[in-house]
């Protein structure tokens, strides 16, 4: 079964919130996943694995400590959403020298943020880790990798820098085809954002009546 990209975005936004991200970060996680799916990559698989990995952990310890220098989380691991948003936000600051990170969890999730930085900087950006080399202009993305490295749980060292042209670009996809297990996992995280039903809320909250026989 395929899913609309809007469905992916909606599901991930709720799931990321359910897994403890602030809403604004959940927005970015959702857009990043959508971007990966549109590039034909398994964004849902990556984000499902990320949420399982970071659930219950102190998110601040998984974020870069400062904008400058190399990035490494306090805990040794780095959340790709925290690192990715910081990477996109601060693109002009690292454009000249590039950025090095250690211990990025699910590094595939960093690509959409590099794409955002590329759009912002108006030049392609390259992301490299453990045998993966991806170049993105923000509009199109080329990738050299094997499947194992693409979906790896944690990157040793990851480098981001300004790059030459994208080639060959990946074909874009209008639909996502996540695994049912990953989709179900997203829904379980999303479930945490729903308020338990009470009779009072049912009657007061939504507003419509019980009968439509008029």
């Amino acid at each position, binding site marked *: *079964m*395929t*899913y*609309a*990209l*809007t*469905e992916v975005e*909606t599901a991930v936004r709720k799931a990321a919130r359910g897994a403890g*991200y*602030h*809403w*604004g*970060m959940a*927005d*970015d996680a959702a*857009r990043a996943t959508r971007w990966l799916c549109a590039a034909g990559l398994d964004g849902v698989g990556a984000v499902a694995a990320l949420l399982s990995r970071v659930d219950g952990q102190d*998110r601040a310890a998984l*974020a*870069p400590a*400062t*904008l400058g220098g190399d990035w490494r989380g306090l805990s040794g691991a780095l959340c790709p959403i*925290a690192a990715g*948003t*910081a990477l*996109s*936000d*601060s*693109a*002009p*600051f690292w454009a000249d020298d590039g950025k090095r990170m250690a211990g990025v969890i699910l590094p595939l999730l960093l690509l959409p943020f590099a794409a*955002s*930085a590329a*759009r*912002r900087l108006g030049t392609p950006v390259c992301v490299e880790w453990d045998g993966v080399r991806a170049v993105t202009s*923000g509009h199109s993305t080329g990738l050299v990798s094997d499947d194992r490295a693409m979906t790896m749980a944690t990157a040793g060292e990851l480098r981001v820098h300004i790059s030459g042209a994208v080639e060959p670009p990946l074909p874009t996809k*209008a*639909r996502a085809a996540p695994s049912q297990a990953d989709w179900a996992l997203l829904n379980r995280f999303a*479930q945490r*954002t*729903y*308020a*338990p*039903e*009470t009779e*009072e*809320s*049912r009657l*007061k*909250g*939504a*507003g*419509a*009546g*019980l*009968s*439509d*026989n*008029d």
Partner: protein
Amino acid sequence: MKTSPQTVPPLRPPSQVMRLSRLGSMHQCRLSFMRVLTRRMAAEGWAFSRPVFDIDDKGVGHAVYVATGPERAYSLVAFAHDLPPGQRSDRVIATAWDATFTLFDGIPTQADIDRLSQNIPLQEAGRVNEKSLSVSRANRSVRLWEHVVDTLSQGRQPDPGMIDAVGYLMRTTAVYGSGKLGASDYEAVSERPELRVPFQAEMLSVYLTRTFVRDLVNHMARARGGNMAVDMAPEIARRLGIGNSTGLGLGPFIINHPRLFNNWIMARETAIQRVRAIETATARQIADFNDILHRSRALVETWRSQHPVQVARLARLRADLDVLQAHLAGDGLSAAFPWDHLIRWSEPALSQEGQELLASLILEPHAALVDDLAQSMADTDFDVTFIDGAMPVSRVRALIEARFGWALALDWSARENCARAWYVSEAKLEPRVGERFEEPIAPYETPLAPARDAVAAHVALRDWADGKPVAAFLLRHPEHRQSIRRAQISATAPYCEIQDNTIAADMFPVDLLRVKLAFFGATHFDPRSDRWVRICMFGNAPYPEDLAPENADFWVYPEVRP
């Protein structure tokens, strides 16, 4: 004619336009999505056909209606059901309906119909693919349906008074679009000229649904009355629209899509500004305006509501129309900058309902001047969501102050200022608004109070040096990321934020629904509670077989005998 050089009137400021009570007083206008659709279809000479109408004497079966434009065809696939009255609910949590629909991209094969017949009648419990552009359902208005079938089956026409009292034979209880239940994303079709303007697929679905409902009621009358039965007279059928009953599901949309919402408001405000900048009204424009004003009164006369808030607003609106008529009988529109003078006059003279009706009406004689703005109502910059982290803290603070200065002065700890909380219920996954201090909902709050959240971000920014890049702040304070993003959007989208407290104790949630429905082109807003409203869509519109350039534009205003 001698005139002093007058500067172009400014756009009305967000502090005026974006108040909830004003948004909740908005009316349809030339730029409303229904009217954009009918104008386009008529101008391009769309063809309509009904290749399938396979419905039995109990009213069970399916039908297909095809609308063919210059490049592509779209089909409404309608399933009619025999629904026991006990299952007829307009809540989104209903599980059965009188009729269910999808707008299909192209012309469906039998295999498509078979697949859809297994899914569309189930609505949320079913699944569609990218060949569906919408999924919707409708219930009969029981009181009117029975009357119409009964009279037609006996060879008589229904009572026009009853037709006007209800306004529709069926009302939709949800029209799902972009990406919902597996349907195509808007982004996947937004480059098609006919679908670029927001909600065109959904509006086409409703337009064709109206035709199906007329055909179905004629069919059911024949099934009951046999040779005795007659078809509904065209002049009566034309009065009927499609109703819609909506709860809070629509409410969060305009808050969650700040740039898109800005584009809607900006288009209408720009249209108003362009008309106000006209120095001289031609005799033709004045005549057209007076004609539409006259017909608009007829529309307001048939607008009914039992809700005390709307009853009071309607009484004021009718009085406003008298005041307006009297005002126009004086100087009229002969002075320089007549439309600008009229708008300025209206601000102290009319209620907000009256002011907004007038603001919509002055656009009517100026198609060539304003209709191009419909194209600007889409938000197709899908990727432009990044935060400019290099922006200095002082600039971010200034952006928040510009948009939410009023909110900085509010005591957000006072109960009345944060009495409500928006949340999504476990039972049906639909947005609701509840009482923060009476229900256990705060932990589940969804971020639909941008003013409160912007103030919290502003407070957190106070200790940061002016020159620091906001990226550094966000690294430390990811909880304010959404507010910073919205503040940056507001720099280029002045109408992106509602200028009111969306969690105040006295907030009237229907205001949020009304503005969106007005942009759709809905009429006859009838709040059934503070968070549930019924409306009419395509009332008085020409049916597909009659649609032509000469009736595609002003159909919303009933023809009145001189």
